[in-house]
């Protein structure tokens, strides 16, 4: 039978996913042996035009990483969806917005003002801003894609068949996912690949007892006992509300989980779940004292939705 045709694409992301894809090591060669990569602008000589020319559904699998931030991201997402039989959201950004989606806590205008006017090194007396169309020389115009108000996950733009979470997905898990897809024996659409059913706690070897919090510590404020559950010691850890798969990598160096593998199965809003969990283990019954304890979590939104803002129920800051 013919080799499966694979496309890889990045949108608003850092490139880490593709590095991760390469962390499968020599197996990348197996991949290349097992499949024809028909579109990989990062790596290969194919153009948008060629992509547009491809017949619908002619690509077997598209691994799409990165969030949707610009009109170009959106256009390519739709184009690739049309050309691909299977669309895979690869990595946190494509799956749930990732770090770029923290921008949903601010506005396009604020971003522009900051980047092109406010920062101390910016020198822009004319108040220039990047333009979607700008005339150069005699009548020629340079174009830039539009910068959307909100950052969206891939599934919020097109239908997504599978997702591979993680920022960045761990090499071995990537290979698992790719192998599953290549095997042709595919799980139910909507499934998450390259991750487990349980949460990070399942892979974390810090010992757990009961949790009664009288004070929260920010990671730099405390010398934690490396053998004990960090949450128990008052350090916010997203592990309990985060899908296993990374092997509790951050915890192995005594750093708390920040939730990049997204919520476990059945959980839509990762932040709401960790919020309810954390709120339930406060060892105080006095509103004032509770307030003081909670002040130890200075940035609930940015902490609980560090990677999943686009998938959060509230999605973005409300403007009134």
């Amino acid at each position, binding site marked *: 039978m013919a080799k499966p045709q694979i496309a890889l694409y990045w949108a608003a992301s850092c490139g880490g996913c593709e590095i991760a894809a390469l962390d499968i090591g020599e197996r990348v060669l197996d991949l290349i042996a097992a499949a024809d990569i028909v579109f990989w602008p990062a790596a290969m000589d194919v153009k948008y035009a060629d992509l547009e020319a491809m017949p619908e559904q002619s690509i077997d699998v598209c691994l799409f990483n990165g969030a949707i931030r610009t009109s170009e991201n959106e256009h390519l997402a739709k184009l690739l969806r049309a050309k691909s039989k299977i669309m895979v959201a690869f990595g946190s950004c494509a799956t749930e917005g990732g770090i770029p989606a923290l921008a949903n806590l601010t506005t396009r205008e604020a971003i522009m003002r900051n980047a092109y006017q406010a920062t101390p090194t910016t020198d822009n007396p004319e108040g220039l801003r990047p333009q979607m169309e700008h005339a150069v020389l005699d009548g020629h115009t340079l174009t830039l894609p539009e910068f959307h108000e909100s950052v969206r996950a891939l599934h919020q733009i097109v239908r997504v068949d599978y997702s591979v979470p993680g920022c960045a997905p761990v090499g071995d898990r990537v290979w698992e996912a790719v192998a599953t897809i290549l095997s042709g024996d595919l799980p139910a659409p909507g499934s998450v690949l390259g991750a487990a059913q349980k949460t990070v706690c399942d892979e974390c070897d810090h010992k757990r007892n009961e949790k009664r919090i009288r004070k929260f510590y920010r990671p730099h404020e405390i010398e934690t006992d490396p053998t004990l559950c960090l949450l128990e010691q008052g350090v916010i850890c997203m592990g309990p509300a985060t899908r296993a798969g990374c092997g509790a990598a951050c915890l192995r160096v005594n750093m708390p989980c920040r939730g990049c593998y997204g919520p476990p199965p059945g959980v839509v*809003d990762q932040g709401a779940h960790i919020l309810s969990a954390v*709120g339930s283990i406060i060892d105080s019954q006095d509103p004032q004292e*509770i307030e003081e304890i*909670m002040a130890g*979590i200075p940035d609930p939104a940015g902490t609980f939705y560090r990677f999943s803002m686009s998938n959060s129920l509230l999605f973005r800051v409300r403007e*009134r």
Partner: protein
Amino acid sequence: MATDTSVQTQSRAQAAPTEERHATFEPSIVAFLCKWCSGAGADLAGTGRLRYPPNVMPIRVMCSSRVDANFILHALRDGADGVLVAGCHPGDCHYISGNYKTLARYQLLQRLLAQFGIEPERVRLEWISASEGRKFAQVVTEMTETIRRLGPLNWKAQVER
């Protein structure tokens, strides 16, 4: 909490001009009532034939501590303009300490909502005993008016942008 008050003052500031605009607006409010105190209080309001606005849709749970922040966010996302969580008075929880857990979660949730630009008045926690039918009616009436003043949350439209 600083963020809260800032949002608060903001919403108050806005209340005036928007008042007429929202005069006809009927807020939709979800009320999570615990079985033992606030639910019974709501029943008492009924037995006493008290009158309060129909904008509140009651949902009965065993204890206010069952109310996951997730439910509240879902309600707002699905179209509620406000959410009321009512439980037993501190010390009276049928399940010993459930309402204190509710309290702590609520305080954390308020700070989260503030970061998303949602006025604190939209999500309200009240202690209502089985004997406080009048208080229930009053809370519901107040809350309906407050939210009418704030105007629709209109979350869907926010998300589309």
